[in-house]
């Protein structure tokens, strides 16, 4: 079993970079949304508004950290760190470049799926412990949505796994040296993107926190740093799903040699981060039952068909 852990220094560097990038996304998303909505976006604090993140952080750290007296204290305090921890743990198996990564594990894909399924607890416990009807509704929606879309997420990945013949993300990247999986697995890619948006409950699938209907959903009662953890957790999820898309379908760090591998990875991942923001800017939120119908009646058969055809193709290729 292959299980290599990177040096402490590289782990710390990756952790730091990932969190800083997620925090910077607060600014990136607002500027990009401004760009697409013909506004300016935050541009007053520092050059191009870059220090807006710092200002937001100061605000969020100095806010009153309030636990409502009617809440279940144990679960209420437990919920926000879960999402941060779970998503940061998922980053441990992502291969950023040759030699850059925390763990080189043979079960990388499964580990990401396991962590994604554990992420649902953060949302559910947060909503349930708040003792607030909107929070409860939000977490009910979140639970159903995340459990459902995990299924398609997992199945859509299996096509890539079948082609690469391994669950190891690093080997999946290496096996794409003579062709990215986006071409043979374009259906899997589409399903993965849709499921990824639903898993990180970003718009247009932010039904658990639909502010027009249920205030703020599961984090209605959260404030201060505990809200901040949910907030940064969401952006971490965006970065995670973008990195996964790049690793699984777009050849990870592979690219022409005039740029170093890590730059290729960052470039590809930022394209998908921007795409996530574009989704938010462009597409309205579906109704809840539409989301569920779409998932179970359209995406599930499609992903199963994709897996079947991929399996047949792999077997046919081996028989040749």
């Amino acid at each position: 079993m292959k299980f290599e852990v990177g040096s402490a220094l590289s782990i710390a560097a990756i952790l730091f970079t990932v969190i800083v990038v997620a925090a910077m996304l607060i600014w990136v998303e607002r500027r990009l949304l401004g760009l697409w909505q013909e506004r300016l976006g935050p541009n007053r604090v520092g050059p191009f508004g870059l220090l807006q993140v710092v200002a937001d952080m100061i605000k969020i750290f100095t806010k009153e950290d309030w636990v409502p007296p009617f809440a279940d204290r144990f679960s209420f305090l437990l919920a926000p760190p879960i999402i941060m921890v779970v998503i940061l743990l998922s980053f441990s198996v992502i291969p950023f470049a040759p030699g850059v990564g925390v763990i080189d594990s043979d079960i990388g894909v499964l580990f990401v799926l396991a962590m994604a399924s554990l992420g649902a607890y953060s949302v559910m416990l947060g909503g349930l412990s708040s003792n607030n009807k909107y929070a409860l509704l939000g977490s009910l929606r979140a639970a159903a949505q995340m459990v459902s879309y995990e299924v398609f997420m997992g199945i859509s990945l299996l096509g890539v796994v079948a082609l690469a013949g391994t669950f190891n993300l690093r080997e999946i990247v290496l096996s794409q040296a003579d062709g990215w999986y986006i071409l043979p697995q374009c259906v899997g890619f589409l399903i993965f993107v849709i499921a990824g948006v639903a898993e990180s409950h970003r718009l247009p699938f932010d039904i658990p926190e639909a502010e027009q209907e249920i205030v703020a959903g599961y984090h209605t009662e959260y404030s201060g740093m505990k809200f901040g953890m949910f907030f940064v957790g969401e952006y971490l999820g965006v970065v995670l799903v973008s990195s996964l898309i790049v690793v699984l379908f777009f050849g990870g760090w592979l690219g022409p040699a005039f740029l170093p591998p890590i730059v290729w990875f960052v470039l590809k991942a930022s394209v998908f981060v921007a795409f996530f923001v574009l989704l938010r800017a462009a597409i309205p939120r579906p109704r809840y039952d539409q989301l569920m119908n779409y998932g179970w009646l359209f995406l599930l058969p499609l992903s199963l068909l994709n897996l079947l055809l991929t399996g047949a193709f792999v077997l046919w290729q081996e028989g040749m």
Partner: protein
Amino acid sequence: MLRLIKDTLISQVVTLWKVFLHAFDKTDTVEYPDVKPQMFSRWRGRIILSRDPDGEERCVACNLCAVACPVDCIALQKAEDEEGRWYPEFFRINFSRCIMCGFCEEACPTHAIQLTPDFEMAEYVRQDMVWEKEDLLISGTGKYHDYNFYRIAGKKIGGKDKGEARNEAVPVNVRSLLP
């Protein structure tokens, strides 16, 4: 099936592309305190009281604006000078209640009360939001330059007798038998 693909996939991709193209458009907003936005002349902002071309107050204290006001933010008291002109003794607008609906302007028969494109009305003290007549009254005619109520209306005031207004016939002498 084709229809479903068209509805769920193609239309979404078209939407994404159209929104993406907005990245190359000019922004609609301006950096406000540094760049003042160009307001429309009919923008409903700060309320003023205007004067007629002769420099007199246009307001005749008819109270129609106060009646029309849905949030009751206008208060005034009628007074009359020795020439017979009506004018408001005080005229008070509470801008912390005002919703800039413009009903007062529509109700005003003399074009006295008008809304202007000025929107910078924030105050630090709430009491400063209450504006008296001295604050509201401007020295110009506002949007309507030639209109002068007392020169058109038949009311008799000092220096203008009955029948001397514009387009007004001389009053019929009902005590006379002549046609």
